């Protein structure tokens, strides 16, 4: 390998000062023995000079038998930066909850040092391990080494994307179901849908163990599974008193902030009218030693979140208000098969499920997947009088 003379990068160098860890330093570290990373640095400096990106549109690249998992990238000045003329990225299924051992990280680092730029994202926006940049002829070899080490590719394009979940019951007392088991089971169950894109567009599933929603399921997942409980908040009065004694203003900072207005603090005793509790988590967040979710646990299933492309951003909305813990996985898998069938039948190219529901209406979607309407699904009943009555309801 020829000695690689680093080109000056005066603009990027300015991002090596200051207290926050620098991605430029990371690229330089990789560039010490990797010509692709050295050229990436040069190309990025060029972008900083002329204020525009230099990556061209994808192009289809991948590994044998897979239609996704690799993002093709080529730069638009390959004569000047030949070592990143091809700079494809692999998405790799992350272990649920993003748990690793040091050895697992070293295994990934070794594989990527042999076959790619030596640069990664831990992690990408969807949650995958991102191996950032390699040549077309390295893809299959990288994939095979990853597979031998027990790793596999994630999704891209119009495919199931790698599901993600919060830390769940591994280290959180609030998790109302086993998010990590759920996430791992789903990732395994839908490998085919992940690797061979079968849908009109992408499909994301995210699982959070409680309504704090640490993986942003309600904002980012086509199907959002969010842990919740049915019975009463568990309350330890002695611990409540400790919080009060330690200076927490329970009336102002806990009760007054309760969206259900269902809590009362007498100065000595806290009462919760659990019928009006919205399961928002605020009081539990504020007093984790004193209050806990109930014991009748499960999850709410919501549908349709997405970022703005194409028709505008959406938050997920309630599809099933409560599924008991033991039935979450079978319910989700049954729902997914019906949702995907409906989407396959009626969805347009690049139309997310949330946009399809907006287009045909929630009621038609519910008919299509065989679910009955429930008042929990709406913020309020319709306020417009133009009702399309079904033929069978009129004489």
């Amino acid at each position, binding site marked *: 390998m020829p000695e690689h003379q680093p080109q000056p990068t005066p603009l990027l160098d300015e991002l090596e000062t200051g207290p*926050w860890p620098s991605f430029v330093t990371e690229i330089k570290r990789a560039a010490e023995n990797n010509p692709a990373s050295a050229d990436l640095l040069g190309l990025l400096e060029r972008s900083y000079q002329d204020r525009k990106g230099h990556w061209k549109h994808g192009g289809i690249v991948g590994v044998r038998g897979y239609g996704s998992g690799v993002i093709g990238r080529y730069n638009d000045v390959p004569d000047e930066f030949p070592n990143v003329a091809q700079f494809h990225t692999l998405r790799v299924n992350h272990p649920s909850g993003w748990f690793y051992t040091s050895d697992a990280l070293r295994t990934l680092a070794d594989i990527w040092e042999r076959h790619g730029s030596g640069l990664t994202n831990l992690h990408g926006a969807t949650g995958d391990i991102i191996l950032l940049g390699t040549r077309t002829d390295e893809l299959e070899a990288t994939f095979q080494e990853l597979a031998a080490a027990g790793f596999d590719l994630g999704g891209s394009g119009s495919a199931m994307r790698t599901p993600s979940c919060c830390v769940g019951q591994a280290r959180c007392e609030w998790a109302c179901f086993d998010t990590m088991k759920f996430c791992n089971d789903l990732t395994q169950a839908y490998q085919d849908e992940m690797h061979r894109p079968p849908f009109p567009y992408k499909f994301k599933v995210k699982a959070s163990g409680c309504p704090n929603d640490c993986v942003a399921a309600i904002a980012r997942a086509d199907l959002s599974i969010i842990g919740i409980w049915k019975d009463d908040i568990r309350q330890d009065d002695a611990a409540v008193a400790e919080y009060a004694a330690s200076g927490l203003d329970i009336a102002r900072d806990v009760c007054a902030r309760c969206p259900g207005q269902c809590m009362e603090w007498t100065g000595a005793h806290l009462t919760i009218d659990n019928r009006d509790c919205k399961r928002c988590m605020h009081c539990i967040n504020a007093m984790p030693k004193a209050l806990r979710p109930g014991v009748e646990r499960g999850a709410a299933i919501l549908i349709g979140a997405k*970022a703005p492309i194409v028709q505008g951003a959406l938050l997920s909305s309630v599809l099933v208000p409560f599924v008991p813990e033991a039935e979450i996985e079978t319910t989700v898998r049954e729902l997914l098969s019906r949702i995907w069938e409906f989407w396959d039948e009626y969805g347009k190219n690049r139309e997310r499920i949330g946009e399809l529901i907006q287009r045909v209406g929630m009621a038609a979607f519910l008919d299509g997947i065989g679910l009955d309407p429930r008042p929990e699904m709406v913020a309020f009943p319709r306020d417009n009088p133009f009702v399309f009555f079904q033929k069978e309801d009129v004489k």
Partner: protein
Amino acid sequence: MTRITDIGPPHYEKFLHPLIQRNYGHWLYHETLAPGVLCHVAESGERIFTVRAGSPRLLSVATIRRIADLADKYSGGYLRFTSRHNIEFLLDDASNIEPLKRALNEAGFPVGGTNNSISNVVHTQGWIHCHSAATDASGIVKALMDELHPHFTREDLPAKLRVAVACCVNMCGAVHCSDIAILGIHRKPPQIRHDALRKGCEIPTLIASCPTGAIRPAVVDGKRTVDVIEEQCMYCSNCFTVCAAMQMNDPENDGLSIWVGGKVSNARSEPKFSKLAIPFLPNNPPRWPEVVAAVANIVDVYAHHARRFERLGEWTERVGWPRFFELTGIPFTRYHIDDFRYAGLSYARSTHLRLRP
């Protein structure tokens, strides 16, 4: 040799600390020992200590090995990453907390990001790897976090403050529900390269890709292509994603917008979208001073005026948006009034007006 495919990820169980395996699903409560340091107590009485550190998300294999070495030395080799790109070392021995914090600080990883802090910034690829980026992402995050760093290492805000950067409206970083979001934007319709379009794009697919129907068939120099009804284009780049001949990059006019008041959590108020605070700031690498100053100003105003436990969007809802614009000094313009689908839902449809003499 048989080719291995479709095996999925390694099972998480083999990466779990033995103490976590023993107490899986049996946690009782947690406490914050210091910013970036959590203690989770199990029903069994066992304790697992978490030390959280910020990372640039983009990591070289050399740095990954360094992180692995720190894990070996201080946490038995067990660690995880958070949904906001923080590294969490999982310790069963409290006496390792301070030495690990010192080692992390020496290695350049700030410890913090818990509770009422600014945690790490969720962001996208930007110019490092994306074809549709209107700006860089990592550079803005670095410049911004250099400035906001004290809010990462201290829990000194009224509530948590979640910041995100997306380099275009595709929003891989899901900035649309963040307390403060920085969004790369285009401001002009695509430049059509008719030669490339004829060679590389399907015209019907291209026309169908436009959410506002602004793309229509046309004939140029006797050949079939498209044109764009400019006043109908909202620069979403969707056409560029299906057809590379619809060039969006425009160094003179691309830039950043700032959005505020979104949240994901259901705590207290419902999850909500971020709202437009600043419609345009110049794209000014390498340190984006206008963006950094604008965000720091919003953080300061929020920190001084919001009540305890009040997220930025909850504060603005309580005091009203006119007060937000007054306190931040940000001008309110025609661009702040929505004119896309369901725009009318955002108009003030009451006389609940916080007027002052």
